[in-house]
């Protein structure tokens, strides 16, 4: 019935690596945000897996819940900023955003 926890941890490690590759490689702001979400999800998987062994206080799951809420707040603010950046620069490619002057 119960899976081996190491498999979960391996999947989470792979997900984190892919998210990191997306953040490093992609040029589009929104895809970079997606990579950050993937890394947060990988951390959440780890928290949930270790929280199985703490069935009374489930601290891992609570922390994962708070991580989710903060990630939602972060992506809302980030997309609002991306929208303003697009209105000003007419592009959202990170390589082309090289001016600080407004």
């Amino acid at each position: 019935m119960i899976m081996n926890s190491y498999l979960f941890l391996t999947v989470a490690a792979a997900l984190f690596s892919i998210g990191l590759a997306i953040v490093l490689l992609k040029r589009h702001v929104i895809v970079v945000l997606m990579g950050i979400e993937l890394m947060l999800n990988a951390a959440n998987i780890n928290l949930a897996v270790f929280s199985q062994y703490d069935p009374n206080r489930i601290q891992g799951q609570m922390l994962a819940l708070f991580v989710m809420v903060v990630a939602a707040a972060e992506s809302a603010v980030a997309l609002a900023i991306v929208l303003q950046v697009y209105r000003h620069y007419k592009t959202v490619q990170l390589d082309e955003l090289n001016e600080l002057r407004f």
Partner: protein
Amino acid sequence: MIQLTFYGFAALTLGGALAVLLTRNVMYAAFFLLLTLLGVAGLFVLASADFLAVAQIMIYVGGVLVLVIFGVMLTHKPDTKTNADSQQPNRVPSLNRLSNSWVVTVLVASGIFVTLYSLLSRSSFVLLQQPIGWESTVTRVGMQLMTEYLVPFELVGILLLAALVGATHLAGRKTAD
């Protein structure tokens, strides 16, 4: 059977993430992100975190992903003459730099993965040798939220309210100037 389910969800998660990495279309990336988030929700269920799985589906798929798709559509620029002949002289150096960044990124990411994997395969956590069983954690999460985590719960509610109000203010058009 449970193994098969686990491998299915793991393949969904990793395949979706790889597709986000490999696709060039931002809209397709958003839809592949949907697959990844659903796979992660399935993994949560298998890790006996059913409340977390439902919260994942509601927050990420229902909130964050809709926001992301709105962002993609609002910042979408139709493919204009960017690939036309005017950019032709810059083509070779930019291509060269692109492949360089691919190599470096793949090296960094796979290096981190190999490091983590070798650490995991050589470690033996004392905690992970305890016997566990699958049980629903919904009641436990509710009790914890109202007792031990009451203050962080309220704080994170205020944080979310402030962030959303700030986001609407940021995204609105400036009328003064």
